[in-house]
């Protein structure tokens, strides 16, 4: 069995901040996130031989972390899943005024998204992955990622009551109506 190279270990260490950020985004819980990162590091170490040097280590690690997350969720019977309905009603988000949007509100809104949409918008909009890379990480088609990102974005805009930014169709009109009250 080939030994783990020093470079691999250094790269693993360097990936930890990104892994933790992705893990928190998925779990919405700091403790669970760090446990998930720990599992990911152990798994990555064990199967380091399956990583091909020169390819994207971050994407490889994100894939491991994501698989671990969903396999844990399955074991727990998806206790945390309920993004639609009930929780939406409970959350009081203040409408964004004149583009001012509080980060706390945003965090709350993000939490309301179904996991598949949340991970898609995080991978594309924050982690810096391409649609192709995100599709590989999530094990789905590029088109699926695109539609998840689009739905996530629309949903966030609805929850946060952001209007008038690059809307499609009827929303462009409602943005004008909203805007006219300020005029």
């Amino acid at each position, binding site marked *: 069995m080939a*030994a*783990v*190279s*020093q*470079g*691999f*270990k250094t790269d*693993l*260490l360097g990936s*930890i*901040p*990104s892994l*933790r*950020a992705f893990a*928190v*985004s998925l779990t919405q819980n700091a403790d669970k996130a*760090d446990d998930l*990162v*720990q599992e990911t*590091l*152990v798994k990555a*170490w064990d199967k380091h031989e399956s990583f091909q040097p020169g390819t994207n280590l971050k994407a490889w690690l994100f894939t491991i972390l994501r698989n671990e997350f969903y396999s844990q969720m399955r074991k727990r019977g998806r206790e945390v899943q309920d993004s639609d309905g009930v929780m939406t009603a409970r959350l009081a988000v203040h409408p*964004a005024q004149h*583009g001012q*949007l509080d*980060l706390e509100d*945003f*965090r709350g809104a*993000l939490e309301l998204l179904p996991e598949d949409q949340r991970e898609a*918008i*995080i991978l*594309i*909009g*924050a*982690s810096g992955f391409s649609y192709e890379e995100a599709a590989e990480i999530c094990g789905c088609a590029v088109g699926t990622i695109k539609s998840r*990102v*689009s739905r996530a*974005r629309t949903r*966030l*805009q609805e929850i*946060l009551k*952001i209007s*008038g*930014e*690059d*809307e*499609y169709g009827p929303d*462009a009109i409602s*943005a*004008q109506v909203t*805007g*006219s009250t300020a*005029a």
Partner: protein
Amino acid sequence: MKNMTKATTAGVGNGRRAASRDPLGPNSEIGRKLKQYYDELVSDNVPDRFAQLLSQLEKAEPVQKKD
């Protein structure tokens, strides 16, 4: 009023074109917040437990000296 409506319409038009290229880019409020949210998480201090964990793994399976 008429001028304002025109300006708004033009603005929306530009926004729509920009959005089709990068709907989560810097012109998007959602895009900006998303990055702010994530960057804050990335810049969080990494607990020692992770460096310790890697050292333990290394002891169990030493790294190559060369490379």
